[in-house]
């Protein structure tokens, strides 16, 4: 029999390996793979550098637009999307959220670093690592461009730089959220103003070809600093009061319905506004496509009318994720809302053995979605990340091929 310790190692390794593999699959375009007609089973923008498939919400919006224009392809696209979701959902439920989605991976990195960055030394290491990634992401494409390197080779640099900026934002959020540090918050606001000033200096000195001379890139950093500062000020103003987002409590419960509302709103808003209404302001598009693109070709772009709105949403989502584990999956992801109900019937499931349970509550503490894994393994909120399996000291939880609810229903 496999010991719980062995099981722990195996599950976390499985998750991390799958997350890495799915990210590589999502950006196969960087290896020269042409755009396919597949649909990502998670949130990932088809405009990302190296993207090779369509985003589910983007496909839904295009399907609605085609239907409204009388094209026969609209229903085909929508039924193709629904068919894909049903098949994936029925096979593995919401597992793609926990094991594959690149946005989920970013949230897991945030949660991991948030836990680990407990000392000043580790905070310093986090700042150093993010700045190093920023420098690599900034200088890489510039050097490659000047030396004539193959574009496919340096396309990764966009993601390296983007991850550096996300980690830098996390570092800022941790600083302002730990304790009531008014000076830290004010410093970030001052930094935001200084970054804006640097844009003008860069513009006047005629620096070209690096993100430092890109109004959009510097504006993004400035916006990040501003939102970090504002989050810190809110934290300061709340004094010792805490925002109640305890799992299952009123606010948490209602906020979880926001993602369902967003999913329901996608099709009507696309039809009414006759455009890709959600995609135009989608924060995940900004995180997975716009920010990496700003690193790759900083001076090739200028902001359109949606840019700053997208960026405000994107940085706000980063703030949410920095404060609440898997905050995007819990409250806002319409694709998670689409997968959620399929947990009830998915063929694979996580089985809980009540006889073995010693009520240590470790599975509850480990759950990034803030649910009680012992209550209902088919909860629509469960993302099947298998952390509860890892956390259980007596192996009361395990992955099973057949859903318990389905099994019970079939045996009636």
């Amino acid at each position, binding site marked *: 029999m496999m010991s719980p310790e062995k099981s722990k190692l195996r599950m976390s390794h499985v998750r991390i390996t799958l997350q890495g593999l799915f990210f590589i699959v999502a950006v196969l375009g960087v290896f020269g793979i042409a755009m396919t007609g597949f649909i990502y089973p998670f949130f990932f923008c088809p405009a990302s550098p190296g993207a090779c498939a369509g985003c589910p919400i983007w496909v839904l919006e295009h399907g609605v637009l*085609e239907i409204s*224009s009388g094209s026969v392809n609209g229903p085909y696209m929508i039924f193709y*999307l629904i068919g894909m979701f049903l098949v994936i*959902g029925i096979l593995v439920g919401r597992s793609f959220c926990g094991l594959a989605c690149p946005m989920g991976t970013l949230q897991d990195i945030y949660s991991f670093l948030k836990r680990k960055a407990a000392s000043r030394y580790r905070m310093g290491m986090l700042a150093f690592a993010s700045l190093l990634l920023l420098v690599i992401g900034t200088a890489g494409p510039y050097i490659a461009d000047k030396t004539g390197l193959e574009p496919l080779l340096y396309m990764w640099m966009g993601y390296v730089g983007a991850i550096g900026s996300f980690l830098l934002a996390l570092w800022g959020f941790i600083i302002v959220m730990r304790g009531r540090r008014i000076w830290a918050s004010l410093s970030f606001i001052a930094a935001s103003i200084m970054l804006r000033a640097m844009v003008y200096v860069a513009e006047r000195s005629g620096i070209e070809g690096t993100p430092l001379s890109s109004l959009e890139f510097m504006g993004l950093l400035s916006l990040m600093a501003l939102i970090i500062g504002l989050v810190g000020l809110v934290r300061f103003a709340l004094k010792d009061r805490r925002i109640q987002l305890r799992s299952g409590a009123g606010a948490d419960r209602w906020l979880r319905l926001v993602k369902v509302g967003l999913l329901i709103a996608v099709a009507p808003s696309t039809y009414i506004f006759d455009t890709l209404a959600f995609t135009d302001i989608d924060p995940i598009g900004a995180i997975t496509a716009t920010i990496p693109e700003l690193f790759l070709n900083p001076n*090739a772009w200028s902001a*359109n009318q949606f840019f700053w709105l997208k960026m405000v949403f994107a940085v706000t989502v980063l703030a949410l994720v920095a404060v609440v584990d898997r905050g995007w999956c819990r409250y806002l992801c319409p694709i998670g809302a689409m997968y959620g109900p399929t947990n009830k019937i998915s063929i694979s499931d996580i089985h809980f053995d009540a006889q073995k349970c010693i009520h240590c509550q470790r599975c509850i503490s480990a759950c990034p979605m803030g649910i009680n894994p012992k209550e209902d393994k088919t909860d629509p*909120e469960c993302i099947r990340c298998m952390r509860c399996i890892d956390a259980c000291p007596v192996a009361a939880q395990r992955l099973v091929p057949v859903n318990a*609810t389905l099994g019970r229903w079939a045996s009636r």
Partner: protein
Amino acid sequence: MRNRDPLPRYGSRPGFNALVPIMLVALMTGAPALAVFSYSGGYSEVQRLATIRCLGCLGLDPQIPGFTSFWTEYPQGHIKKGEEVPHPRFVTQVLDSEEVDLLILFYWAQGCVPCSEQWDEMVEEGIASGPEDGGREGTKYAGLRLYSIDANEDPNGLYPTYIPTGRENGVPMTTFIFRMDDDIIRWYSHYGKMEVDDVSGMMDRIMYGHISHG
């Protein structure tokens, strides 16, 4: 002693198991739907739409260096810089017509906000007429031929020929093509939204004004 979980029950609401039979039906329909609708057009339609990069998704417009001159071959910065442009037969046929002084190709894509904005402005100005899908020239300029082309469809393969860098693909893109007395075809492509005053200015320059020979 009974251990109580510190968290209230969430999720598994009573009666939610009623979804089971519904989901079983979904199982029967999901796989055939995926197979049938991806094969019958869903897959190819997603591929078609995703091939042209959605600049709206990026929230960015391409930054174009200011116009300096019209091109006769592929310009500086193009991956085929200096090479001859293989003008499609469709273009040469249009330019051969005596009634046509200038051909404008306006490329757009479904759901592209800057595309529809530029189209509406051109219609208002009298440069274009009709809906964006299949739209044609307006009445303001005699000698103008304008085609509004869905970049994802583009049956004559015009779009890849006239991308100003040969690398990125995005919309809107406005291409001006004309012939002078020396019979050489000159052209210029603007990638990203073009203000209607700039479109008019370019047209005046080509049809009535002085032209810089690139």
